[in-house]
């Protein structure tokens, strides 16, 4: 666990790059720092391995104050990956990856095996790449080697400062996927800095949004999108992003909370009148407690107007429903199948809390594309 307690950094020129940070990074967590250029992301990350020494507060790793540890020993327990890869140009790929194991005094055989294992891990054929020099690799391949090198000595913590920032979008996407897979398999604590919100949302278990040396919000991607704590966070995430990610819009935000309901004992004639008034072609039938019983359509009511006494007799079960915790994505997937294109939203007790229709979904996206607010 990495713990920041009132950690701050004032550079020798008097500039306070980081102001009193308080947070923890849990073991095995993938934490992403994001924020505008110059907000102190790199400074914050480098304080963890003491490439930058903090000037205030206490920073501890696994309960031990890092100021009380030898910086070299501390760094050897952490992997470090930077944007430019920073491979040693005079070392072969093999030598680059074997460097940390070598410094730790591993024997030849163990080192060799590790190099092969690492190259396979990052998707590079050892036969092809082990003996090459960094210059003979593409940027993406170099960055893979950078990741392999950082992981070679099996550190618990890996620090990555915009590792994929200089890569083309396709390569970046590939490396992100691989990093996620690695993280799932290896359970490292990863601290990752990026400029790219999509990258942060994709990779982070939690995302730390920074601005002017301060931590504005530290939350899961979900929470960040749903409940940005700050106008700035919302702006930085980008309002539009929500619509690109319907999985982040809760149905409770878009449902209508006043669906047309009826008790089952209403007569067909009254039901039709009520439907005309409400300009709807369906009624959701609930009991007196508000528990959803089923659905009745105007078509069925008219067809049976002379044969039944109450609409309770022609009630149809609801096949597709939503829970309040569902998202717009769930709504979109279900609305196609749903009868009459309506999706009642029902809580755990079976109580009707709202309704999502094709209309509400369409309105949401239409409003967005027209530039309006939901």
């Amino acid at each position: 666990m990495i713990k920041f307690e009132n950690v701050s950094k004032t550079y020798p020129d008097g500039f306070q790059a980081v102001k009193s940070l308080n947070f923890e990074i849990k073991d095995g967590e993938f934490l992403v720092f994001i924020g505008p250029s110059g907000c102190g992301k790199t400074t914050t990350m480098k304080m963890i391995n003491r490439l930058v020494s903090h000037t205030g507060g206490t920073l501890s790793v696994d309960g031990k104050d890092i100021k009380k540890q030898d910086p070299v020993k501390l760094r050897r327990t952490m992997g470090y990956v930077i944007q430019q890869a920073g491979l040693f140009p005079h070392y072969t790929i093999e030598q680059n990856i074997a460097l940390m194991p070598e410094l730790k005094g591993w024997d030849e055989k163990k080192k060799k095996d590790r190099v092969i294992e690492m190259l396979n891990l990052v998707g590079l054929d050892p036969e092809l790449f082990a003996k090459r020099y960094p210059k003979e690799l593409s940027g993406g391949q170099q960055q893979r080697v950078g990741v392999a090198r950082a992981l070679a000595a099996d550190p618990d913590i890996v620090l990555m400062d915009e590792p994929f920032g200089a890569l083309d979008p396709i390569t970046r996407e590939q490396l992100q996927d691989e990093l996620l897979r690695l993280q799932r398999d290896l359970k490292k604590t990863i601290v990752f800095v990026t400029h790219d919100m999509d990258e942060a949302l994709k990779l982070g278990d939690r995302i730390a949004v920074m601005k002017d040396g301060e931590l504005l919000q530290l939350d899961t991607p979900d929470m960040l999108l749903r409940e940005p704590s700050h106008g700035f966070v919302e702006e930085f995430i980008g309002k539009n992003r929500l619509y690109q990610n319907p999985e982040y819009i809760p149905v409770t935000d878009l449902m209508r909370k006043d669906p047309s309901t009826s008790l089952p004992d209403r007569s067909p004639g009254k039901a039709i009148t009520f439907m005309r008034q409400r300009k709807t072609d369906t009624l959701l039938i609930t009991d007196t407690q508000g528990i959803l019983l089923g659905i009745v359509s105007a078509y069925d009511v008219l067809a049976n107007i002379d044969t039944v006494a109450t609409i309770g007799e022609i009630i149809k079960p609801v096949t597709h429903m939503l829970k309040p915790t569902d998202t717009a994505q769930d709504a979109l997937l279900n609305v196609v199948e749903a009868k009459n294109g309506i999706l009642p939203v029902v809580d755990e007790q079976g109580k009707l809390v709202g309704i999502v229709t094709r209309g509400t979904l369409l309105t949401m996206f239409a409003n967005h594309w027209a530039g309006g607010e939901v």
Partner: protein
Amino acid sequence: MENISLWEQFIRQFNLRGPELIGATGVHIKLVLISMLIAIVIGVPAGILVARVKGLRTPIIGVASILQTIPGLALLGFMIPIFGIGTITAVAALFLYSLLPVIRNTFTGIKDVDPAIIEAAKGMGLTSRQILFRVQLPLALSVIMAGIRTATVINVGTATLAAFIGAGGLGDFIFLGITRNIDALILLGAIPAAILALVFDYLLGLVERWTTPRGLK
């Protein structure tokens, strides 16, 4: 007409002083090699020091630069009261003269290593000594060699002045040629000195290429 007679004179001088020339060339090479060796032994560590200790940069480079601006002959003159006349003074002066290119190239060679590489090295937990020997010096080596090469070529020329203080070398012929007003004799010293400079330049060029890390070629 005159050229031909100069050429004939040169051949005559050459036949006359052939064995002497070989000896003088030997002495000349010795002066260059010894002074260069000392310049390397002192200059490379000085360059490393300058690269690592910020405060030393101005004083060390400053002193070496000033030494470089003193005319060769004057430098020899200053040395005589300290070391007397002869080889030691010549070597000392040549050494001081060669110091700057060696220090400067060692310094720039180290400083010009991509900071990203140094940062990665540091971040991985290399000690500053490991960074020096595993990263900075190997990557700076060809630049350092270039400095040594430059210094050596200049040194071969400057070493002709050693004759003025009785340290011998190819300068003997030039000195003699000037005092006796025999142009051919001057050439007898100057031409081998020039050839020597070219040979050193070529050989050290090979070393320079050889010391460029494979990954950078």
